[in-house]
């Protein structure tokens, strides 16, 4: 049993991102409409789904009619977004080619075939290295809003476009839900980051292709020059940049070649292969690969964020579903029904009137603070104490004493506490008492103040005692009427006893 339960707990089903998106869309709709969608089949599906609250919420949202529409519209939106992405990547690839083309065509236009290599590299990588720096800064400084300007821009543009272009309730809801989810958990940041890097990678790839093409079919002379800086710095820089591509076996310019290529050192241009592979290698290693790597990383992070994404179940829109989706208990119904034919209540015993006798037999039944109770201390010579009933032994004794009392008393008075709930045990005692004696049996309800102090409603409690008195044939219930004042029970009894004495013929 144990393993079974824990297994099931660990396997709590986790819905996919789409399911959460649908649930979010349904919630947004309900939030704006101000009430929940009341589809019986959807509620039922949610309840039957089992598992934790989130799973039930997801299933229920998916089972609503609106949820189905949202899911359908998502399919179309996804294809559209895919085409849009391809289009954007193509466009940026082309613009990368254009940039490279421009960088390499400039010397030709000027009527020369000399390329200033650092100038060319700077024009192809400079901007995007700067942007990379900016991106990193945004990620570090504004962790909630970062993600790259381009990516954010594309996301925003997509959202804005979609909002303007999309018609119909379900697609609009889907987009709003997507934007909501994107704003949580860093998901938007990582998605935007992925897009940013992909776009720059496309740009660099375009540039790389263009360079490859241009360097293949045209002939350039590679030179460099400086006015302000020392030559050694340049040599070190170029060698350092060439280290990585060099490890991969691309031919790189050595120090002699670098020094020889300086503007104006020799007439003949040298090492065209080395220089072009240096340029291409730099583009690859400092432009394309970092972007691809970062893009992959961002994509992984976005995936992780998407997997970790849970609905905010404490938000009012979801919390209000809980009572209907996740019952805390299930009633099993009556397993042992009450007896079908209730025994007919026996004929109520005949009423007794007081016949002679001058004494009153007094007994207490399950009283509180029995030892300090007034029936222990009263000073009436005509009131004969029979003791107090607390458990079944005292009960037996008291019954025997009541039966054996000589001469028979005029009245037997049972003092009960209003703080007690009358039960069948009391009922049995009163019936017994009445069969064993001939005198009328009175019931005196005492300790009303105690009952009230405990928050018991004295009137309701008295009603229960009245019913008991009726069933057992108690001849008189004192006090006669329910009162709100807590009168001393002894006085009530005294007055009632005196009155009944007067009435006796």
């Amino acid at each position, binding site marked *: 049993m144990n393993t079974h339960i*824990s297994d099931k707990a660990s396997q709590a089903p986790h819905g996919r991102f789409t399911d959460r998106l649908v649930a979010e869309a349904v919630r947004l709709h309900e939030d704006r409409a101000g009430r929940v969608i009341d589809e019986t089949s959807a509620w039922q599906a949610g309840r039957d789904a*089992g598992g934790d*609250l989130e799973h039930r919420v997801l299933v229920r949202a998916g089972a609503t009619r609106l949820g189905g529409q949202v899911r359908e519209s998502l399919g179309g939106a996804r294809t559209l977004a895919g085409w849009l992405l391809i289009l954007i990547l193509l466009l940026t690839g082309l613009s990368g080619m254009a940039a490279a083309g421009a960088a390499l065509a400039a010397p030709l236009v000027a009527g020369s075939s000399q390329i200033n290599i650092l100038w060319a590299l700077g024009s192809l990588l400079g901007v995007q290295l700067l942007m990379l720096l900016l991106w990193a800064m945004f990620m570090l400084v504004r962790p909630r809003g970062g993600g790259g300007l381009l990516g954010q821009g594309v996301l925003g543009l997509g959202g804005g476009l979609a909002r303007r272009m999309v018609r119909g309730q379900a697609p609009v809801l889907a987009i*709003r839900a997507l934007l909501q989810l994107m704003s949580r958990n860093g998901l938007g940041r990582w998605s935007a980051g992925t897009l940013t890097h992909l776009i720059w990678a496309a740009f660099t790839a375009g540039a790389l292709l263009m360079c490859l093409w241009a360097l293949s079919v045209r002939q350039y002379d590679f030179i460099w020059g400086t006015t302000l800086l020392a030559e050694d710095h340049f040599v070190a820089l170029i060698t350092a940049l060439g280290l990585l591509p060099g490890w991969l076996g691309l031919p790189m310019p050595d120090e002699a070649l670098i020094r020889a290529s300086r503007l104006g050192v020799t007439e003949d241009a040298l090492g065209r292969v080395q220089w072009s592979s240096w340029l291409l290698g730099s583009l690859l290693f400092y432009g394309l690969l970092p972007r691809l790597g970062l893009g992959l990383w961002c994509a992984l992070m976005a995936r992780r964020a998407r997997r970790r994404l849970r609905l905010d179940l404490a938000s009012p829109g979801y919390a209000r579903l809980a009572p209907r989706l996740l019952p805390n*208990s299930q009633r099993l119904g009556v397993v042992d029904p009450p007896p079908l034919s209730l025994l007919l209540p026996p004929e109520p015993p005949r009423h007794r009137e007081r016949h002679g006798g001058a004494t009153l037999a007094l007994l207490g039944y399950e009283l509180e603070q029995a030892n300090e109770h007034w029936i222990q201390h009263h000073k009436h010579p005509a009131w004969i104490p029979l003791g107090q009933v607390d458990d079944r032994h005292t009960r037996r004794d008291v019954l025997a004493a009541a039966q054996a009392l000589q001469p028979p008393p005029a009245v037997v008075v049972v003092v009960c506490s209003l703080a007690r709930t009358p039960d069948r*045990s009391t009922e049995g005692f009163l019936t017994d008492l009445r069969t064993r004696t001939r005198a009328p049996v009175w019931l005196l309800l005492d300790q009303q103040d105690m009952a009230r102090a405990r928050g018991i409603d004295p009137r309701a409690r008295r009603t229960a005692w009245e019913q008991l008195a009726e069933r057992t044939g108690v001849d008189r219930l004192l006090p006669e009427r329910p009162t709100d004042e807590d009168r001393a029970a002894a006085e009530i009894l005294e007055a009632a006893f005196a009155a009944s004495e007067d009435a006796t013929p």
Partner: protein
Amino acid sequence: MTSILEVAVVGHTNTGKTSLLRTLSRDTEFGEVRDAPATTRHVEGTQLLVDGEPLMTLYDTPGLEDASGILDWLDETGGGRQARGDDLERFLESPDAAGRFDQETKVLRQLRASQVGLYVIDAREPVLGKYRDELTVLGLCARPLLPVLNFVAGPHNRAQEWRDALARLGLHAVITFDSVVYDLQGELRLYEKLRSLLDPWRIPLERLMQAREREAHWLRQAAAETVADMLIDVAACVMVVEGGGRHDTEKAMETLQDRVREREQACVDALLNLFRFRPSDYLGERLPLEDGQWGLDLFTPEALRHYGLRTGEGAAVGGAMGMAVDVMALGTTLGAGTAVGAAAGALLGNTLDLGRRLMHRMQGHRELRVNNNTLRLLALRQCQLVQALIHRGHGADQALQLDAPTDDTWRKGSLPKPVQKARLYPEWSRLNSDATGTESRARAQALDALTLLLSGDADTP
């Protein structure tokens, strides 16, 4: 073992067995509860579910009323020796068991079919002989018994007396758990004691405890967020009054009051639903709002005074109308209704809003919004309701009444920052017709901050 732990809830009549079941199962509709003997005459079961999986079955039984009678019966038929387990067998098969002892028989049979019994005691009662007799009879069933002292939250209880008496009978593990005044720790202790009595069911009981704790935490969160959402809606609510006539102002004010009242009611409904109570569980202040007899209405100066709030002297336009509002006129606006610092700061970055207001001003429009004291009152009332619901057992039968709050957090000082901020963003409020910002990130952040603040309040007892 594939069975579910079965627990019989037994006890004298009218000690709150059904109430206890209601509270443990969070089911206000289970069985029938009355302050009368023998309200429950049958055995009824309910299963406690965690994530839809039953972990424990509780059985509500009729009250024991005549245990002494059973002992007498056993004495008479058993020849005077001490009653034993097989005597119980003899009793259960006798015609008397189905006849005059029908209720008791049901209890005993159910206890024997269960693994453990919860013996519910009305702790306000003295330890009478009949209760000792009940424990003797129940003891014949040879099942562990866990006494549960009910109604211990009031001042008139005799928990200590009961503990002593139970200890003398060999029952040392005693639980205090009030079925009307709910206490999470009490419920956890109950399951903990059961766990120590019933080792084979250790794992489901632990799961149950974890689930209860998780659920309580979630409830606090969700309740705080529900209240925070309402507060932001109300704080951001603005009515633009076209034209400066007194009639227009009055009409707008009425609309505003109605909207705020409706929003508060929606919040109350949501909270009751969240805690799984019936709408009738908080009638006291519901009806007066509904049928127009405003006993403790939001906007009366009396209500504000009741909560110990000072009504702003200058801000009251409609003292007679029962509501103090800020009539927002630019120039005096920034100081009057909203907190100065926040307003100035936010307005600087809010030139669009400023422009819109200027336009309104030039067209002779004025803006009407709920004043600070109303916000304080709303926050106080709802926080108090949340507290009351957290501590209300599902066995409680009487509708909830709220006293004057003792908590000073909302009465003094300036309003919390998120509320002040909401003042300046009409688009955040669902009460405004052009609520475009209900899904904005800024509102979500303000909501989170306010929720944190409120749930922090809720954690202090």
